[in-house]
Structures are given as C-alpha cells and as structure tokens.
C-alpha cells in the first residue's frame, strides 16, 4: 500500500461508517462521450478550493471530524466523495490553484502574479460554448491570483477568460473612497498571503479599474463597507462576494478560492483550526445559497477540493501542520466532494484521481473539450 493510498484509506473507512456511503463503480457511470453529448445547456458548476490546504488529521480523521460538522453531516450525505486526490505539482497556492483551473501542472513561479501557460477551464467553456464574459467568474484571495482567469495561450487568452474578482482590492477601493485612514481598520481582510513572510499586497493601485469593476458588479460601496464591518475574515468577504455575483449575474461557472486556513503558516494551531471550522461553515453557506437561488437550484454541481494538503507531523524536513514544503503524501493527498446536479449521493470513489482531473471533468459537465489539459475526465461525475 503506498502512502497516498494509506492517507485516503482512513477517509474512506471513516465516511463509510459515518454516512453509510457506498462505493461508486466506473461500470455504473455513463461514458464521457455520452455525457458530453447530453450535456445540460442549463448546467452550472461552482468550484470551491477548500482554503489553503488542510490535513486529514484536522478534517476527515476521527480526531478531526469535530472541525468539519457541516461537511460531514450536511454535505457528505448528499455527495459523491473522492477519497484520494493527488497533487503531483508544485505545492504553492497560486500555482496549484491555477493548475486546477487549467488541468495541467503549471510550473511558473508561485510568488509572481502571471497567467498560466495552459488554457483554463473558463476559456474552454466560454470559447466553445460562445458564452459571454459574465458567465464565468473567479473569486480569488489575493493579487497573486489576479491573472488566473485566462492563459497565455494565443488561441484563447483574456478575451475568452473569466472575470476575476479580488474582494480585498474592491474593499480597499471602496474604503479609499471613504478615506484612506480606514484601511488600517481592515488589515485582516486585506491580508494577501500567509505563504511567504511579508508578501503584502499593494492596494489602492488601479483605482479607476477598481471603480469600473465595482460599477460592472453593481456593488453598492456603502453596503460593501457596512457588510465588511460584520465579517471576520477574508474568506467571509469572498463568500459574500460570491453570493453577490451569483445573485447579480448567475454565472454558469464560478471558481471560488478560499484561503483562511493558510494562516497555519503562522504556527498558531488554534487559528488554523478556526480557519478549518470557518471554511467548513462557508462551504455549507454556499451550498445553501445554491439550493435557495432559483437560478442554481437543481442544475448546479458543486465541487469542493483542497488545492493540496499540509506536511505530516513526522515528515522529515517539515514542521507539521504549519507548511506544505516536504512533498510528502500528507501534503499531496487530498479529497474531493461533489454535490448536486447529476451526482450520485452517498457514494465514495476509491480510485486515485489527480487535482488536474477537475478541469477536464468540468469540461465534460459542460460538454466541451479541455483539449490541452493533462488531467483525465472523471466518469463518476457523469
């Protein structure tokens, strides 16, 4: 048994005993071709990356279940659960998230904002289905992610990409309207990345561009300011923004990157746990929004997946939960939860998939071809 399998086995056994999930077999699935031919033109997909990497120890292990009550009790019983999702790429948050979006392991510098090399799922979706810009959105945690909505591909590129929203930039912009001094009141919401010391974002640039985005999003600056004052974290701001986008534009493809959990880099275990609990709650909130919004109810597939895990307590060269530097099985092996339209509930998938399989799988749900992706379609989602 390899290490990836060992990590996933504990999840599988746990879920089976907790929610009575059954094993999903490839034989019971429709073929990818059949699925593509019958793709629902009203299909919507919401992708959530589960906040900056979380380990089994604090989520799906017996000891960890206390931190994910919503995933476990509300979402898992309605889901098809993939117990073994392996990320074989670079374990940096932006490059890994971009790889999920392109279906190919990107190899660019994780700490420099830049478009991915391979076409994104947003580009395949919009170009092949001739969808407007408002039909694909990315809600991202910081400016490193600003260019993940489209690739460097000459065939695709920004004209075919997703609208990328950086909620903290928007907040900074509306706070700027009210007086720059207020910025200091919101540093927790403006924190950009926990991965690298002192990688603070520079807010306030491109004020005109921000103003245009706010107008295009039909955001009320006063309302955003008031709402932000009730929020406890960047991810709460992101989910607020995601709901606003869903209610205003009802996009068919929405990619939400949560990031609070990555506070683990600070070494404060209690804040890491708090981040997991918050992310768990926010995932349930998002599912509730999907179920209560007529534009989404009954036609939306929700996919929740960490971008990768974190180092194990005993991994040589690591420092436990704090980082994701060792490349161990604990850091590379995660899970995926699929709910909603077309998903077989209470099922679990044993076989390993890779994080780059998500883009081809989503392409399959829309009936488009992620032709440059390296990942494989996921028939169990059909």
């Amino acid at each position: 048994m390899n290490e990836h399998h060992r990590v996933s086995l504990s999840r599988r056994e746990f879920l089976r005993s907790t929610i009575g999930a059954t094993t999903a077999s490839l034989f019971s699935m429709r073929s990818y071709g059949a699925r593509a031919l019958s793709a629902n033109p009203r299909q919507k997909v919401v992708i959530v990356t589960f906040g900056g990497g979380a380990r089994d120890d604090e989520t799906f292990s017996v000891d960890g279940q206390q931190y994910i009550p919503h995933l476990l009790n509300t979402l898992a019983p309605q889901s098809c659960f993939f117990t073994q999702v392996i990320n074989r790429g670079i374990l940096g948050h932006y490059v890994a998230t971009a790889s999920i979006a392109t279906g190919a392991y990107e190899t660019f510098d994780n700490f420099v904002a830049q478009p991915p090399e391979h076409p994104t799922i947003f580009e395949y979706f919009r170009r092949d289905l001739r969808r407007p810009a408002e039909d694909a959105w990315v809600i991202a945690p910081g400016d490193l992610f600003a260019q993940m909505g489209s690739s460097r591909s000459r065939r695709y590129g920004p004209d075919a990409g997703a609208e990328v929203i950086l909620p903290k930039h928007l907040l900074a912009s509306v706070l700027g309207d009210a007086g720059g001094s207020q910025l200091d009141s919101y540093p927790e919401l403006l924190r950009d990345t926990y991965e690298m010391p002192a990688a603070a974002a520079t807010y306030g640039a491109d004020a005109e561009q921000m103003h245009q985005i706010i107008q295009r999003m039909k955001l009320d600056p006063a309302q955003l300011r008031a709402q932000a004052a009730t929020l406890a974290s960047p991810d709460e701001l992101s989910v607020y923004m995601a709901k606003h986008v869903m209610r205003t534009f009802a996009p068919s493809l929405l990619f939400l990157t949560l990031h609070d959990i990555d506070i683990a880099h600070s070494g404060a275990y209690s804040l890491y746990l708090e981040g997991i609990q918050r992310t768990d709650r926010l995932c349930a909130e998002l599912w509730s929004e999907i179920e209560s919004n007529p534009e989404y109810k009954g036609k939306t597939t929700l996919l929740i997946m960490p971008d990768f895990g974190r180092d194990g307590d005993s991994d040589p060269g690591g420092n436990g939960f704090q980082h994701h530097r060792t490349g161990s099985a604990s850091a590379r092996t995660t899970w995926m939860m699929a709910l909603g339209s077309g998903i077989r509930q209470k099922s679990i998938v044993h076989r390993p998939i890779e994080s780059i399989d998500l883009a081809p799988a989503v392409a399959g749900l829309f009936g488009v071809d992620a032709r440059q992706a390296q990942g494989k379609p996921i028939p169990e989602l059909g």
Partner: protein
Amino acid sequence: MSTHKKSGHPEQPPQLDAWQNTIARMPITLRPTLNQQLAEWPTLFPFEQARLADFFSAADSYSPAELSSLMAGLRSLEAKMGIADASFSQNGETLEFASQIARSAYYPQWRGEVQRVFNAIEARAAGEQKQRLPQRRLVLLVLPRNLPVERQTFSQYWQTSASEFQLTGDCEQFLHALMYGEANAPSIPDLLGSQPGVDPSELWFIDAENWLSTSSSKTPATPLSALSFAELKPFRDQFLAQLNTIPRDLSGADQVVASLRRTDWTPWCPAALNSQPRLQRFVVDLFLSGNGALIFSSAFAEWAASEAIRRARPRVVAVRFGMRSKPKPFTSIAIFENQEKVSVLPDQADPPNSAVDAAILARYVWLAAARYPEYEQALCLCIAENLNAGWMIAPPGLLQPGGRVFSPAELNSFVTRWITNRA
C-alpha cells in the same frame, strides 16, 4: 592573517581552498548550499562545522571515478532540467535558485537524487569516524501555569510514547532549580560549564516570555544560548518593518534577504545577544525561515528549538512556551503585521487558544529531536504546570525512578543525575 575572531570561532574553514576545489567537482545544484556554508563558517555551530568537515573529508576520499559514478544520476537530471543554462548564483542559496529548481518537472527526482548523494557521502563519513558513546541529552518542554492546558488534549500527543507523572508543590520550582540550582544541587549550566570545552550551543533556554530574567535576581551560569521572545521585541519590530519591504519578485526578495543578513542589528538587540554574534545570526535566519516566529511567542519558541536541535544538536534544550494575544477585531489575524501598530485597542491574552498552540508545538520540538540519532539517548520531559503533571519519554535502558509522583527537587535530582551520567 589570523583566521580566528576574539570569540575563538575561526573566520574561515581550516581547508578552504581544498574544500572549494571539492565543491567545484560537484554537480551545479549542490554548489550553492555548500558554498554558502563555507562563506558562513564563523556563524556555524560546532556541530555544523564538524559535520561539514566530515562531509568534505568523506567526499575527498572518493576516487575521481567513484565520485563521477556517485554523481552521474544527479548530473543527468541536471542536464534534463536545463540547469547549465540557469542564471542562479552558485555562491549561496537564493530564492531564485530554489524557485528554478522547484519549478522543474524533475524536482521530485532531483530531491531524491540529492538525498541519495548526501546519504552516501555522510554514510562514508560516519564509517570513518571512531565509534563514540552517544551522549545523554535532555529535551525539556514547559507549558507555564497561565496556559490552561486540557488533560485530554495534552494526553493525545504523548500517551502513546510517554509515561505520565504528577508533580507535587510548586512546579515552577523545578525549572528554577534546573536553571539556577539549589543549596546542594548545582544548576544544569553549572554542571555543563564545569566540563572542559563546552560551547554555549550545548545548552539552550528558549523562552516565549521572559521568565529567565524575571524569575530570579541571579543570572544563570554560562555556557548558555538564551533567547527570549519578549526581550527580542525591539529587534522583532525593526526586523518586521524591514521585512515588509520585500518586493514581489525573486531577485528583489533575494536582495532584501541578503540585506537583512548584513544589517547591523546591535541597536535593537538585548546586550546578551550582542555578545554572541553567532546566536544573533541564528535569530536572523530564524526570522527569515519561520513565518510565525516573528509574531507568535510559542511559534517562535518551537521553531527556535527545532532549528537549534537541527543545527547545534545541543545536549540540553529547555523550552518554555507562552501566551499570545487574541486576534483583535478588524486587526485579528494580521499575521506579519504589528498588531499594536495597526490597532489602538489594548492586547488581550487568549489563554485557551494559547494552550492549544503550545500543546502541539511542544510535541513538535520532541519530534524534531527524535529525527536525529544524537537524541537516541535523550530524556524528554513535557510539563504542564496547570495540571501539575508531566510526560516523560525515557531512552532505552533508563531506569525511571520508582513511583509516579515527584517533588520538584526529586525531579531535578533525577534529571541532573541523568545528564551527568550518574543515573
């Protein structure tokens, strides 16, 4: 020209030219790390210097054909990775180097191959060394009384490998006796200091607060490498301010990191740290490598202890964890920010969550030590003062004292007899 500073630490390796020639025969991707260690020789701890000398001695014992054969796999990978065209500096480790390597599709294989090469050379080095009796060591982890550790939380980290014991009386007296001694019992620094040639890196006291300077009017005997998160505050604040100027590109970040290493931090450091330049440099490297070490006291304590163990293999490392403040409303998790600067609200201690943090971080210190063969003969004690309890991991063969209830004096006696080979 003298190659020794006043402190007695040589400024250059004893065989600099020969070792540089050895590095030149190594594959390109091994050179930055090795060159950096040579360049930073005076800042290396004795253990690191000895290990490096052993490494070069073993590497030089390979015939050219043997060395070529050993490195063939790595050179082949470097060719596939296009390393020959890479622009990174070979003089030292940089973010640019790390980034170029990590972005390669061959990165996992490269890591494995580097590990294989180092393992082979170090195995030969170990074979050349005389067999030494493993030294007795002590890893002491203290969660002070102000941290409300829950027994169940604490037990889960230790129950499988450690035995629990109870402490009677004032737990703090144990640490006091250990560091300052008692009427008929010398302190650990006294005991180690009485042995010839003991370096300060043999004994570390790492404090999330400032217990050492406030718990007694006495000063512990040297040798001692003592670090206090609280007393480093001016240093931390100044360091954080400069760290926050790092630009968003790798070459710029490398320049800032190099600048931070060159900066004279004397005006912001405690006097004791200024008298130990090697320890001061250790703290700079610590701040650059551990994200939370600048912000949270227990994260500092854990990372400092783990790095001390990795780099210096001390005979005694004592770590005292501490409190962190609650995240403030609308400043809260402003990691890498100075909370006092961004909010006028007073700090408010967060005892329950500080206890959660300290409980797991204490275990991480022991896990860091347990990775190394030097700690096969280590006694580990983790004490939760609020529970009047501790957990003990005893090395094989150590006859633990009878019973499971100790007074602070009895525990101190047991520990000092152990470390001085009398137990």
